[in-house]
């Protein structure tokens, strides 16, 4: 209860400050939009379906891109974790690549795939693949060996061993990596969408800039934050709680 109260007070204060600054009109409204203006932008954006379409398009893209990242990343991570040679070569390369913002791939992606959705997907994949791969590699190493032994002993091999034993056994160790991968995927997507007429949230945000409509810009920023937060809070928190219940791990508070 106390925690909820603190949240409410904090956000109410923040909102109050924003309203106050906007009311004082220190800056003109087109530089510093008021809460009312943002609410209006949100309302009109949703009622003429622009935002709904943008959200649907962006979510679809991020799901495809992130999904591909997860599958590829798990395969890559497992490979790197189970082979000394790959670990020393590919593993090192992956770590160094992680310092590269994924949007740096944009020029190449444009050349390779053309000015279309695939170029965006490529940037999203490059943004999240590394996190997933490194998480899987780490998870595979941290996972107690006994699970693999017991699985093989009970007749699991090949894909069955991976699907029924290695994957579930490493999940608690990779869930934070999966979460990080999701965050990178979402960010990369918005960045890429901002660079190209693409119907997604990123483009709607840039449209606000082009029309000098800062209320709309802030409205879309709020949407981007909200979606990122909801996926994190619902999907990943739920997954973590589920794992904690099954494994009997104490929740990290």
């Amino acid at each position, binding site marked *: 209860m106390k925690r909820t109260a603190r949240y409410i007070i904090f956000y109410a204060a923040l909102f109050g400050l924003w309203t106050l600054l906007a009311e004082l009109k220190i800056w003109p409204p087109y530089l510093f939009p008021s809460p009312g203006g943002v609410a209006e932008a949100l309302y009109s954006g949703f009622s003429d379906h622009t935002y709904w379409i943008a959200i649907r398009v962006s979510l679809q893209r991020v799901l495809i891109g992130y999904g591909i990242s997860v599958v590829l990343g798990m395969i890559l991570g497992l490979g790197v974790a189970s082979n000394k040679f790959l670990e020393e070569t590919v593993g090192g390369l992956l770590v160094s690549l992680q310092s590269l913002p994924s949007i740096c791939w944009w020029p190449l992606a444009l050349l390779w795939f053309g000015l279309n959705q695939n170029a965006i997907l490529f940037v999203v994949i490059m943004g999240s693949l590394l996190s997933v791969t490194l998480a899987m590699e780490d998870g595979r190493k941290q996972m107690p060996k006994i699970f693999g032994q017991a699985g093989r002993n009970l007749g699991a091999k090949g894909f069955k061993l991976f699907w*029924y034993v290695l994957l579930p056994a490493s999940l608690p160790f990779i869930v934070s990596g999966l979460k990080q991968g999701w965050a990178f995927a979402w960010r990369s997507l918005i960045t890429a969408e901002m660079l190209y007429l693409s119907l997604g949230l990123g483009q709607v945000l840039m449209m606000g800039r082009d029309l000098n409509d800062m209320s709309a810009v802030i409205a879309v920023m709020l949407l981007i934050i909200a979606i990122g937060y909801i996926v994190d809070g619902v999907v990943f928190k739920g997954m973590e709680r589920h794992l904690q219940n099954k494994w009997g791990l104490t929740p990290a508070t």
Partner: protein
Amino acid sequence: MSTNAQTVSSAYPVPVDSRFPARGTRLDPVSVGLEDHGTSIQIPKVGLTNICLSYKTQAGERLLALDHINLQVHPGEFVCIVGPSGCGKSTLLHLIAGLHPQTSGQVLIDGTPVQGPGTDRIMIFQDHGLFPWLTVGENVEFGMKMKGIPKTERLEKMRYYLQLVHLAKFEKSYIHQLSGGMRQRVAIARALATEPDVLLMDEPFAALDAQTRDLLHDELERIWSDTGRTIIFVTHNVREAVRLGDRVVLLTFRPGRVKSEFPVELRRPRSLEDPEVALAARAVLDELRDETNRSLEAEYRNGIKPHVEPGVES
């Protein structure tokens, strides 16, 4: 086989007459010589011939872990392997399970060489190796699922084996909700559910408290005599070995060799507190002591734990 085999059968060591199996229907391992001249030579359930295992230590030197192990285990026999830590007794089980290849020699099951893991030999680990993401019931079903047995049959068998270890009520529980003893019983049920011929037990009760362990000894003895499985049981606890085994095999400290074998012909059911068990254990302990001393010496000399066994995993 070892030449200095001893027999411990009662308060006074009496040599076993190999022509007459000492008790019941179970074949006395020593009697499976070739005296019957031909008609019914029994193929051992598990045959180890000249098993050697060496591996590279981190320092780069080759270490011989197992040295020409020869052992025959007969169908339905309960064999216990004892030895000081570092003698490679757990590793030997991994080899039999096919989880790790030996350097040379052969593991034979019913006379056929082992090629990798198989559900005819199921291992029970000290830290049970149950899957925490599955319920108790799903754990027991796991091996059958891998075999492709249909769901209804799986459920039926799963319930049967959970009943056998007195855990029927815990079908829907998760592993972390069970006590140590219950976990080992689930592991036993999971192993039995794949209907293996051989159970390989790697110090399964070492981490349990004394009362729980006693109980599980009784249960294991009962399950063994009900199901007629062959059991190879590794332990460092000589009393436990004598209490459970038809035969106790003593391994030497690094490299692991079969030092001696002790047939145990005490009446069942036995108990850890039986004076006969204590007495029989003493004979084994006397021989084990030399090996333990060597193991401790090595530990002091190197300043490292002696049981650095090879990384047994894919």
